[in-house]
């Protein structure tokens, strides 16, 4: 097996993107097939890499300023990264195939597939990076690809705004991330993960410093994985095409934050305060997103908030010092969330871009395959045994029960909310009577779109079971296994289901109307107001400096001084002959005085 195979996997999407941008721009279908082909080949190679237990790759030195600063281009191929490789290329490949159908009539098809390939390249780079700087570069590249993809239909103002918002919010998180990297580098002298792990003592000897560095690194995850308070970009990112929402905002990019935290778990877990903060931020995000989701009416937004909530669970697991639990949940979540999003995409396309759930209804009969797979995804999400979500969520709740009871109770409430809003979604969309013309006439999607749905529903079912998961992951061990936690979790889920069914069966419109939740806790308004205030202040300050300091002192000051001196000097030009003679005489007297008498 060639030891350069991982490099080929990494570079193949880049080559595909370049080919699409340079050569096949005008031939949309050709571009699509090139991109899809590249992704399938990438998946196959990833499986090959996965089966090899040992892989030695050489580092390419890039910035070599040893002993001060050394950044190689190197790959890390342990179990974690190999699993993520298979996951990302697999789900990515399915979404490429799905996009063939979804974006069939789109005008910017070449651009879309090129950005998609670029995204695959960046994501694989994050997974395979073996040092902070390389990961940061690919981190930013993922942000760029996300910007390009969210703003794919850039003629729409909402899409352009959403893309900008995503990029800027990510940037804020990345700023903290960079500071964290710098802090770690300055303490240990290296940016390579393996080296830092070996040099942890130089960090643990300064616990305050370590906590701050860990929290700053966490900032990157806060931005990328849309945790509170940088969560505002993810729901708006739904302006992009649905396959993108599935790939980026469900399965892969937002998971990059969790992946990064697990990758540098040795750093995070060395500081108890950092873990505490991380766990609580995850918890807050989870419950807040759950609350907001109960009042949303756009199918994609409900799923987006659901993603936020599940990401909160994953971050909570990281904060409870169990990277394995977080990865388990990430793994199962990737499958069922992608499934849910792709199903939503099929519905949207077949209803001619209708996204409001109150304009759908009774689709269970007209779109059977979509309905069935969507139901499987929902059951996995809400944690209904024996679907995959039950096992992974249960693991996290068990951890919380052990470590921090308060977090456990909040997690239970979130599970209740999850069941509630997902059943609300399912009831309103698939059951009841059709509420609009589009709903009446919707048909089942073509096979190129339902195929991936069917394929994804298999892992959604099976991924939780040990025999499947053990191939890919290290399953976390929970001490007090017992039956308390699973029972409570199932009870919470059932309560949610019952509440949803009783409230939303056969309804024409939403009975509950909580403005606070519907307006997403007014976060967007708050941020807009903050930005406004800062800008006003800065603008006022600049205006003051410009007007009073630069203008008055510099520009007008110079001219006024010149004028003043000129006016003074002008007084010498009196025009009177005898005055001149007088001054002349004064000069002579002075001259003689100084020449003779001094």
């Amino acid at each position: 097996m060639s030891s350069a195979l991982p490099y080929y996997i990494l570079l193949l999407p880049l080559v595909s993107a370049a080919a699409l941008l340079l050569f096949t721009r005008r031939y949309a279908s050709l571009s699509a097939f090139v991109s899809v082909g590249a992704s399938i080949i990438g998946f196959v190679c990833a499986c090959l890499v996965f089966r090899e237990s040992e892989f030695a790759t050489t580092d390419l030195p890039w910035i070599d300023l040893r002993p001060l600063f050394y950044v190689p281009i190197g790959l890390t191929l342990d179990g974690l990264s190999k699993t993520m490789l298979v996951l990302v290329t697999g789900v990515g490949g399915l979404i490429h195939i799905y996009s063939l159908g979804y974006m069939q009539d789109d005008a910017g098809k070449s651009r879309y597939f090129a950005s998609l390939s670029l995204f695959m390249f960046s994501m694989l780079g994050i997974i395979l990076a073996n040092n902070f700087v390389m990961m940061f570069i690919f981190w930013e590249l993922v942000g760029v690809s996300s910007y390009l993809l969210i703003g794919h239909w850039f003629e729409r103002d909402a899409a352009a705004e959403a893309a900008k918002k995503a990029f800027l919010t990510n940037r804020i998180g990345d700023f903290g991330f960079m500071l964290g990297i710098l802090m770690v580098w300055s303490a240990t002298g290296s940016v390579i993960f393996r080296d830092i792990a070996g040099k942890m003592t130089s960090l643990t000897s300064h616990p305050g410093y370590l906590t701050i560095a860990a929290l700053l690194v966490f900032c990157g995850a806060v931005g990328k994985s849309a945790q509170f308070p940088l969560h505002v970009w993810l729901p708006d990112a739904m302006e992009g095409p649905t396959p993108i929402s599935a790939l980026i905002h469900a399965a892969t990019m937002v998971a990059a934050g969790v992946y990064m935290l697990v990758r540098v778990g040795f750093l995070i877990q060395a500081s108890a305060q950092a873990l505490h903060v991380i766990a609580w931020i995850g918890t807050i995000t989870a419950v807040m997103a759950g609350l907001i989701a109960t009042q949303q009416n756009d199918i994609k937004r409900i799923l987006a908030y659901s993603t936020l909530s599940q990401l909160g669970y994953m971050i909570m697991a990281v904060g409870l010092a169990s990277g394995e639990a977080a990865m388990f949940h990430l793994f199962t979540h990737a499958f069922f969330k992608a499934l849910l999003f792709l199903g939503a995409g099929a519905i949207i396309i077949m209803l001619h871009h209708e996204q409001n759930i109150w304009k759908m209804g009774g689709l269970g009969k007209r779109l059977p395959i979509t309905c069935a797979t969507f139901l499987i995804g929902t059951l996995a999400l809400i944690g209904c045994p024996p679907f995959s979500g039950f096992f992974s969520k249960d693991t996290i709740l068990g951890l919380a029960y052990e470590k921090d009871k308060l977090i456990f109770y909040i997690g239970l409430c979130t599970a209740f909310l999850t069941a509630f809003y997902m059943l609300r979604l399912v009831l309103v969309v698939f059951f009841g009577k059709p509420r609009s013309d589009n709903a009446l006439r919707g048909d089942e999607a073509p096979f190129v779109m339902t195929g991936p749905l069917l394929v994804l529903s298999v892992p959604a079912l099976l991924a939780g079971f040990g025999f499947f998961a053990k191939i890919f992951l290290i399953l976390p061990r929970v001490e007090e296994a017992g039956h308390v936690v699973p029972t409570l979790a199932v009870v919470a889920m059932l309560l949610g289901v019952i509440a949803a069914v009783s409230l939303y069966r056969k309804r024409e419109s939403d009975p509950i109307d909580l403005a606070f939740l519907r307006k997403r806790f007014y976060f967007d308004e708050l941020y807009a107001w903050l930005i406004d205030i800062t800008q006003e202040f800065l603008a006022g300050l600049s205006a003051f400096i410009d007007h009073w300091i630069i203008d008055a002192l510099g520009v007008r000051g110079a001219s006024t001084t010149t004028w003043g001196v000129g006016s003074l000097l002008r007084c010498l030009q009196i025009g009177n002959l005898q005055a001149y003679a007088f001054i002349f005489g004064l000069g002579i007297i002075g001259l003689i005085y100084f020449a003779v008498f001094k």
Partner: protein
Amino acid sequence: MATLGDYLLVSGMLFTMGFAGVLLRRNIIIIFMSLELMLNAANLSLVAFSRYRLGADGLPNYNAQVFVFFIITVAAAEVAVGLAIIVALYRARQTTHVEDINALKF
């Protein structure tokens, strides 16, 4: 016998009178004449020094007297041109009062 100092003092007094005339009189012709007084005072000084410093052969140092010669010539030329200017000025302004001729000011 008059001493060198006496001659120089007289010359100084003449010069001062000429200078006072330039500063205090308003008529431009009078000012011009005071100017001539000043020049002549300088001439007197020069000649006094010429007589005081004798050359090697016991005769006065005639260099100073040549200088006086030049001064007289230049003064004559200057008076000619100056008076021509005054005439032109009088033709333009119809006045010889020096305070009326003050157009070259800010």
